[in-house]
């Protein structure tokens, strides 16, 4: 390691020096030795701090909530400036954040979803330990333990989510079907919907993780909680209940429940996404997290968006009677943020996170349908959307909530799992199906 570094540095010192001499202009920052967070300069005193904030709020209404949050926070805290950098979700999660944590200048406030992935990010040494900064208020925040590593707080959740079916009440009424409680009922509802010309279920397969929701939901129905937890920890789904889950999924896929071209449909981007399809009434339902209403608002036409609050309903993943797992467990997770940078920046970051977890902002996040589970339990009264109220109420009765597998697992095993499931959706076969079970432990 040292020798290769010396070799590289020696060769390059000369090259770089020559290059620097040969270069005429140079207005780019050429020595990012201190992480100053963003392009504007910042002093080292606590008085003037600039933070860059990477989040996935690229569209309204979430974009508006974040922008307003910055405005009010900056007004109340002169000297702290926050630069909002919304980035598309998949690019943010899979590309920008991993690469940024490699470099010297990672964003000061960045979004992550907790679990094993956060644990792995912590090993980069760049993520700040904010246990002391948040100790005074973290007790009120539900789900905070998902953002702790070895008992130390490395991030803070800002909203929590539960996964379930978001469906169009008007379409169900038109076709004459009721909310299914078992998979068999769901399948019969699907065939009626298809006969009536609707895509029964929309799925944003292009993004990968929506496929994972399906497999993982079947896994929750077929496997006991302890099996799920232990096999995730082992990074290998060896228990035969997972094979049963895969077979159940296979049988379900054979009923052709999805929209045409589902493999190329994204989940959240554009009117042609799975969310857009439900919003415009082309599809009757979608298995998604409770951010979906807010996403639908962003991709729907004005007319459709107005209808949504009254026509959207929610039901949990149907049951599979006779299987070993819990019939009421739900899949879920949350959005959170972590801090990087100088001490001054981390302190400012923690302050901002506290603000995001305050009733004012939590009300807004709930109000726009971004979440069904505010981190402040006291704010769940703010939920206005009936569908989300159903989801939130159901969560209180669920046996347990399981963090999405790809977040519970460290980065690579999680990505492997998502890729294996996506590959299975693209080309269903016995080999792609069995590949799912061992995918997390692929080196």
């Amino acid at each position: 390691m040292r020798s290769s570094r010396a070799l590289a540095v020696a060769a390059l010192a000369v090259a770089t020096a020559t290059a620097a001499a040969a270069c005429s202009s140079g207005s780019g920052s050429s020595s990012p030795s201190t992480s100053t967070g963003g392009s504007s300069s910042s002093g080292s005193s606590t008085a003037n701090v600039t933070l860059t904030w990477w989040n996935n709020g690229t569209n309204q209404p979430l974009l508006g909530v974040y922008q307003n949050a910055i405005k009010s926070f900056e007004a109340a805290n002169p000297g702290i400036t926050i630069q909002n950098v919304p980035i598309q979700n998949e690019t943010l999660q899979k590309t920008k954040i991993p690469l940024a944590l490699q470099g010297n200048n990672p964003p000061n406030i960045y979004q992550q979803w907790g679990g094993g992935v956060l644990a792995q990010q912590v090993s980069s040494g760049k993520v700040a330990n904010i246990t002391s900064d948040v100790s005074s208020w973290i007790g009120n925040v539900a789900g905070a333990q998902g953002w702790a590593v070895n008992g130390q707080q490395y991030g803070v959740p800002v909203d929590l989510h539960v996964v379930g079916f978001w469906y169009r009440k008007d379409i169900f009424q038109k076709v004459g079907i009721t909310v299914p409680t078992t998979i068999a009922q769901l399948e019969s509802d699907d065939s009626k919907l298809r006969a009536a010309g609707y895509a029964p279920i929309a799925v944003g397969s292009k993004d990968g993780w929506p496929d994972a929701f399906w497999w993982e939901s079947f896994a929750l129905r077929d496997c006991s909680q302890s099996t799920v937890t232990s096999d995730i920890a082992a990074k290998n789904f060896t228990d035969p209940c997972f094979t049963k889950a895969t077979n159940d999924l296979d049988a379900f896929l054979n009923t052709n429940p999805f929209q045409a071209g589902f493999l190329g449909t994204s989940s959240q981007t554009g009117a042609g996404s799975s969310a857009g399809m439900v919003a415009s009434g082309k599809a009757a339902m979608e298995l998604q997290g409770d951010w979906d209403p807010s996403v639908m608002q962003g991709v729907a036409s004005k007319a459709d968006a107005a209808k949504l609050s009254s026509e959207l309903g929610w039901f949990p993943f149907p049951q599979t009677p006779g299987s070993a797992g819990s019939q009421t467990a739900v899949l879920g997770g949350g959005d959170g943020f972590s801090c990087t940078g100088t001490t001054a920046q981390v302190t400012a970051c923690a302050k901002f996170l506290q603000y995001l977890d305050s009733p004012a902002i939590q009300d807004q996040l709930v109000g726009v349908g971004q979440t069904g589970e505010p981190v402040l339990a006291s704010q769940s009264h703010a939920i206005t959307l009936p569908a989300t109220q159903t989801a939130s109420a159901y969560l209180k009765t669920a046996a347990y909530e399981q963090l999405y597998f790809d977040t519970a697992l460290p980065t690579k095993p999680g990505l492997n799992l998502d890729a294996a499931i996506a590959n299975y959706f693209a080309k269903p076969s016995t080999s792609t199906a069995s590949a799912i079970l061992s995918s997390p432990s692929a080196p």
Partner: protein
Amino acid sequence: MAAIAQTGTAGPRGQSTRRRSTSRWTIMPATYLVAIVALGLTIVPLLLVVVNGFRTNADINGNAAGLPNPWVLGNYTAILKSAAFWQLIGNSALVSVVATALVLVLGTMAALALSQYEFKGREFFYNVFVAGLLFPITAAAVPVYLELQRLGLLDNQFGVAIPEAAFGLPLTMIILRPFLRAIPGELREAALVDGASRFRFFVQILLPLAKPALVTVGLLAFVTTWNQYFLPLLVLQTQSHYTLPLGTYMFQTTYSQNVAGIFAYSAMAMLPALGAFVFAERYIVAGAAGAVKG
């Protein structure tokens, strides 16, 4: 061969004219047909991008292949007014200029060394450069990224420009060295007899003569660097440092509903490349041909 060429000018004219005119009847229409098809397949997508930039999203969603109805300037003006867009152009320009300068200066120096001097190992060094053609930048991007990380050059336009220059050297050597070697040695002898130092000979006589090749090399380096996407994707983190292809991609993923805006953005992103190309087409094509002839 030479004998045949000479007899070719003689020979019965009547026979050859008749033969040539029959083939012309079949070949010329075929040529025009192919030309028109090629022209269409190339131009239509480009025109589409430009024209769709003048439509609204509702218009495009309604009919993907129609003409603008109404014509709107909003997409293009929004881009022209956006500081972020000009920042992208500025960054791409900086990276490309730096890389091109490096390639021209260092490549010319090396080509001079390998063409104007004779020494043991000269061919070895030349082949070292040429072997670089086998190491494409995409395959090297990850280790280059790791190297830049160790050097602290990440998120830095120079971190993109310097590797680009390095990878542009093989093609540069392939074009420049044979060119410089082809310049007659008598020229050099004459200059030196007149009392010029070698340095003055290089700068005042040799390089001006090599101008066509230098222009070609510079243009190729500029265009290749400008169009890079993978290396900037890995190296550049802060939005304000992005180059144009990367920025266009980021715009597309962030504002994916705004289809008209994406078309307009893509059209604008194509302009610098097409502009440079129209301006310098002769040289770029000659450069490609020069690489062929070796």
